[in-house]
């Protein structure tokens, strides 16, 4: 069976690379993914998905329907990218999508357009292989991940899939893992420490005291320096009151709850502000209203929860076994999230929707949000093969006992 998948995959390599180039050269900032969505939808129809459509949030969904009601696997990648100016000047243009020295360059190559292309072609590969499926495959290219904290995925799981009576039993993310088999990452939260008072000097003093205490490490156990970032205070006058807002971005470990973090930070900030007079100190999770490219608006909290699928969970084990059987390398691990502010849809899927999730994507994590971002071609073209092997082990009709060798 794997020889068939390998042969068929090789025949699709060129088309896959071309499609990835197309996606990269089409800008898709968060909340502005319409053009790329159009490309994905067209390609899915072209390669023969059973059903292709766009939902209210603007996600593109392609389905391969099996002979039985389940199980169901979800492949997910986000279509949006960060802005190219985020990390310094690029040597190569972010939208040219050049192939050079075994690499495909461009904004989003690693995070996550290489993944999007690979997922679309995973479905194509399974279709071409003619291997019958018991259960269903959902390939979803989602919106507003980078900026919106998995807004697109939330809409998919809360509304779109339930309306189709589809519930994923497993999810595979195409986020960059360099084809490692990732089972989770730490979370992070963006908070605002708000200091308010009628007396502007008290507010200034309090804000300064809080910032100093943080920098001096007197704000209690905040973890190591890398997992914690403090912004300079922003001052406003609102309704006759002086208000200072200090932004905090903090890593969340799997055992920590938002509530505990808020409570502790509140306590420490209030303590630091005390000598400065009677000021009101409040710590809140940052949130904002966002307008998706389809026009719908949604309220977003700036939290990404830590998540982990048990490394010995059935899903991890089956994925390991399938990749081994397919002759692929198996490297279990977790995302490091080198930059605070990065996250994946995994936290949403695992913590809120109880869908066991793993990551298997061609990009390299260190390339995400970096300038001169690229994805390795050899990893890109291997991704549909490895993903198809995992998907088949979960939803395929077992092929045991048969070989395609002459009898």
């Amino acid at each position, binding site marked *: 069976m794997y020889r068939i998948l390998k042969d068929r995959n090789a025949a699709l390599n060129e088309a896959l690379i071309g499609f990835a180039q197309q996606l990269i050269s089409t800008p898709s900032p968060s909340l502005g993914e319409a053009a790329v969505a159009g490309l994905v939808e067209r390609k899915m129809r072209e390669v023969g998905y059973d059903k292709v459509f766009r939902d209210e949030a603007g996600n593109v969904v392609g389905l391969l329907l099996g002979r039985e009601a389940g199980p169901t696997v979800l492949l997910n990648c986000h279509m949006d990218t960060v802005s190219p100016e985020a990390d310094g000047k690029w040597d190569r243009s972010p939208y040219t999508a050049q192939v050079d020295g075994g690499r495909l360059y461009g904004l989003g190559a690693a995070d996550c357009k290489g993944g999007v292309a690979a997922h679309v072609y995973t479905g194509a590969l399974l279709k071409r292989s003619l291997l019958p499926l018991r259960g269903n495959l959902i390939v979803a290219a989602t919106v507003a991940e980078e900026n919106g904290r998995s807004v697109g995925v939330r809409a998919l799981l809360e509304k779109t899939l339930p309306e189709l009576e589809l519930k994923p039993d497993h999810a595979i993310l195409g986020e960059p893992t360099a084809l490692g088999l990732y089972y989770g990452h730490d979370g992070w939260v963006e908070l605002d420490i708000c200091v308010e008072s009628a007396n502007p000097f008290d507010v200034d003093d309090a804000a300064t005291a809080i910032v100093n205490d943080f920098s001096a490490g007197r704000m209690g156990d905040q973890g190591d320096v890398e997992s914690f970032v403090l912004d300079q205070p922003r001052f406003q006058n609102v309704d006759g009151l002086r208000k200072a807002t200090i932004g905090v971005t903090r890593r969340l470990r799997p055992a920590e709850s938002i509530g505990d973090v808020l409570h502790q930070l509140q306590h420490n900030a209030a303590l630091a502000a005390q000598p400065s007079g009677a000021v009101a100190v409040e710590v809140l999770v940052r949130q904002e209203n966002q307008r998706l490219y389809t026009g719908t608006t949604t309220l977003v909290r700036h939290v990404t929860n830590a998540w982990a699928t048990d490394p010995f969970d*059935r899903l991890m*084990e*089956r994925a390991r*076994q399938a990749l081994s059987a397919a002759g692929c390398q198996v490297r279990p691990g977790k995302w490091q999230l080198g930059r605070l502010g990065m996250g994946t849809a995994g936290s949403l899927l695992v913590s809120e929707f109880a869908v066991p999730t793993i990551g298997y994507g061609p990009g390299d994590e260190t390339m995400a949000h970096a300038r001169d971002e690229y994805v390795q071609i050899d990893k890109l073209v291997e991704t549909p093969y490895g993903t198809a092997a995992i998907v088949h*082990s979960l939803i395929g009709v*077992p092929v*045991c*006992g*048969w070989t395609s060798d002459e009898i």
Partner: protein
Amino acid sequence: MKVLVFNCGSSSLKYKLLEMPSARMLAGGEAQRVGPPTAQPACIYHRTNGDQQQHQVDMPNHAVAFQEVMKLLTSDTRLAPDAVGHRMVHGGTRFADHAIVDEAVIGELEAIQDLAPLHNPPATALVRACQSRYPHLPQVVVFDTAFHAAIPDYAYTYALPRDLMSELGIRKYGFHGTSHQYVVEEAARLLDRPLDEFNAVSCHLGSGGASLCAVVNGRSVDNTMGYSPLQGLMMSTRCGDLDPAVALQLLTFAGGDGDSVENLLNKRSGVLGMSGMSADIRDVLASVEQDADASPRLRRTVEAYVWRIRKYLGSYLATVGSADAIIFTDTIGETSPQVRWAVCAGMEVFGVSIDPARNIAATHLPADVARDDSKVRILAIQTNEELAIARRTFSMLSGAAGPLQKEH
């Protein structure tokens, strides 16, 4: 020599005290509900000549059960054992023969416990308890697998990668060895043939497990069970032979959970799975015989059960070449003339001719149910697990030349 035989179940301990070589039973019984306390109290059912007793006593493990049994026996000096024989299901490749117990043997037994994780551990614990409590009492461990230990390599090897097989110890072991060996010896004696020139196919058909054994010159050359007791015939709850791809499909559907597939194939298949009615083929047989409209499903169960035995009988008659006898034993083999008939009828091509009248009349065993002109005799012989173990124990300890002694 008074030989005390122990047969460990997962929550029971059966025992018999036999005078050897006469095979006269002096005492016997069973300790039931050994282990954690259950709704009913644990107790020992004890029998001596003409006398039956029941003793209620806590037995949280087999070692304690053993103590209690020894107490009962040693309370009467006439019943003090001279030797102990233990039944052990799996001897692996380390034990090609039964073994006289010493510290090294106990070490080996502990090393191979996982070969039969439900059966070997309690029996091994019993051996250790006995050794430490009565270090001067000779003990012998008698293995179900030992009779098959010398089957040829082309019979015990599976067509799997060689290094994988040696790494995991995968080969055919075969089971019911003690029973097969016993009835073969009895058969040779009954037909007055020297054991080392005796060829037979022995059919141990129990209400639980079942297997056939091909015997050449008194030695086993093949057994239908294999690496585990799952292979071979269709049994009460075991599937027997199965396309390995089907086992793999079941493993896929179970998401890789090998234990649940093991349970399915071992406990919910076979006669029970196929009939949907009972694990005992006799129940299904009765149903089919009494009810003219019995469901096709029950009929097919009986046909399949008998068909598999018949095919393996043909296989082993071909293997053995020129058989002296076919032997039927254990629950179904001893008490079901219908099964004997269905398996042997139409086998004249092998020189096997069953006599229908003799077959039905064979209630007092041992019996020969073949026609006079049948080249191959067909014997129904009662198996006697404990006597067989006592025999092996006696022969190992007394260094007797052959296991057979004339009985009084």
